[in-house]
């Protein structure tokens, strides 16, 4: 494998790991609130969260690029805060990936919270357990399989990111060139041998992620069947 490909591979794994970890931190409290929220705005909030599922990644990338631009208030604010630009940087790609993979982390957590709320949490409320103890000793331990699924889905989905990274980050080796872009580069330069090698590695990693995901899902399904 080419040294540049190893760099791209490492950058992709780093990006996927950071994105999935940050999304878990954001989504756990968000899903907790949303699962028990019964307001009229609920469908709108759920639709907003699910939007990246249907939007073309290039569309999201385009608007994020506009947002990150030094002429935009947000881009200026970021430059004032950190002294760096978000466009064409790894941080910018991370922020883009957060939007891109949000629904993939959110959905398993929402489903997990809904199941826990309707059965176990109701029973614990009736038994007189305080909200904090319910969350710490009941909800979080029961949510473990959903957290595993959410992380694996977020990680796997970010691995295959292409259009959005290309729009926001371009193709800068060691900074924004992820595996999918390096592969595109190889194909464009007709270096099919390197493309095959990189594809194989990406296939193996994606497959491993999905095996883990189904393992977690199986735990959830078996658990539910046993409890029924």
């Amino acid at each position: 494998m080419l040294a540049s490909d190893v760099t791209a591979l490492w950058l992709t794994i780093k990006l996927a790991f950071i994105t999935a970890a940050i999304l878990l931190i954001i989504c756990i409290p968000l899903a907790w609130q949303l699962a028990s929220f019964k307001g009229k705005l609920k469908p709108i909030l759920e639709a907003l969260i699910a939007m990246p599922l249907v939007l073309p990644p290039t569309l999201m990338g385009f608007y994020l690029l506009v947002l990150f631009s030094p002429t935009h208030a947000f881009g200026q604010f970021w430059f004032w805060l950190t002294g760096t630009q978000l466009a064409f940087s790894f941080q910018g790609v991370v922020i883009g990936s957060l939007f891109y993979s949000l629904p993939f982390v959110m959905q398993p957590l929402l489903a997990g919270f809904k199941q826990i709320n309707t059965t176990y949490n109701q029973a614990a409320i009736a038994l007189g357990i305080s909200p904090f103890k319910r969350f710490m000793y009941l909800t979080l331990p029961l949510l473990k399989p959903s957290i595993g699924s959410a992380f694996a889905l977020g990680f796997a989905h970010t691995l295959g990111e292409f259009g959005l990274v290309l729009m926001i980050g371009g193709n800068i080796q060691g900074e924004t060139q992820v595996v999918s872009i390096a592969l595109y580069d190889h194909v464009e330069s007709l270096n099919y041998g390197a493309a095959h090698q990189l594809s194989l590695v990406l296939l193996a990693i994606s497959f491993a992620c999905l095996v883990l995901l189904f393992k977690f899902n199986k735990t959830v399904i078996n658990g539910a069947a046993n409890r029924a």
Partner: protein
Amino acid sequence: MLKIQCHQRLDDFELHVDLAINQFDILGVFGPSGSGKSSLLQAIAGLTTAQNVCINNHNITHLKPDKRLLTLQLQSCPLFPHLNVMGNLLFTHKHCKNKSNNLTPDQVIDLLALNPLLNRDVSGLSGGERQRVIFARTLLSGQSVILLDEPFSALDWSTRFTMLGAVQQLNKSHGIKFIIVSHSLKELLYCSDTLLHIAKGNVLQCGATQEVVQSIYTNKSQTPLSILSYSKPEFNEAFGLYQLTLSNSQQHLYAVPSLVKQNHKLIIESSQITYSKVKPINESSANVLIGMLENAQQLDEKWLLTVNVDTQLLYCAVSKRQWQQSAVSPGEQIYLTINNLETLN
């Protein structure tokens, strides 16, 4: 003391309860399915809103469920699947605050015979074992007012009577007050001292269990059940049966060991009782009691006889033909044969 005002719209009707009960140890809430029993318990526990809830002169209307100093065991209450049986028991013992009964896990485990189950995974428990563990977990919340919604419906009658006996024992030994919802009058007749009868969200009657039950029978809504108290259960090794001497009486019955419970009560269905004006001869059953016919009342196609056996009332349902041919009048002495006590059906 329980005082509750609750007016809330349910799916098919309005729950309309305005009630004050001065004294109870075990309050039964009886009514057909969908009559608002569970909603009433949830209102008392604070899971739904009620206009006014007062327990033991303490107004808890505006308190959150975990501050009400009571516990509700929901119908179809689940065990927590990430914990084993012991973990489930310790969950409420550790995490429920403001305990007002001093029950320890060891006491509850002994009382409900849970020792063999403690290290088991909850997913492998049978329906009956699950309900025993759920009940034990509820007890260990440490509250002195416990609300139970159909708590033993998955148990066979023998185990159910054992659990109801445990409820009575906990009431006597630890002063825990129970409010038990059930659609089985047999269950409530066995253990409750006060009975609330509701239907379609309205309170029909509330009072001493025996009186309310008798009134329900005369309104034809249930098959009559009798309850017989006894003392001195003595095991007869030759027969393999217990000899039960009736309370305040010299008369006795024989019963299989599984019918003999700690609270010394037998529930007898009207279909188990036959009667005759003369003493049955060549009768293979030894379970014949002498009583005085107090009352005979026609209910549709049958007659309901109320018989006084040394101050205890037994209800016997007979056909119109049987009643007319027997030519018995109130005030006369009759013989009652109690079936199915020496063998289990």
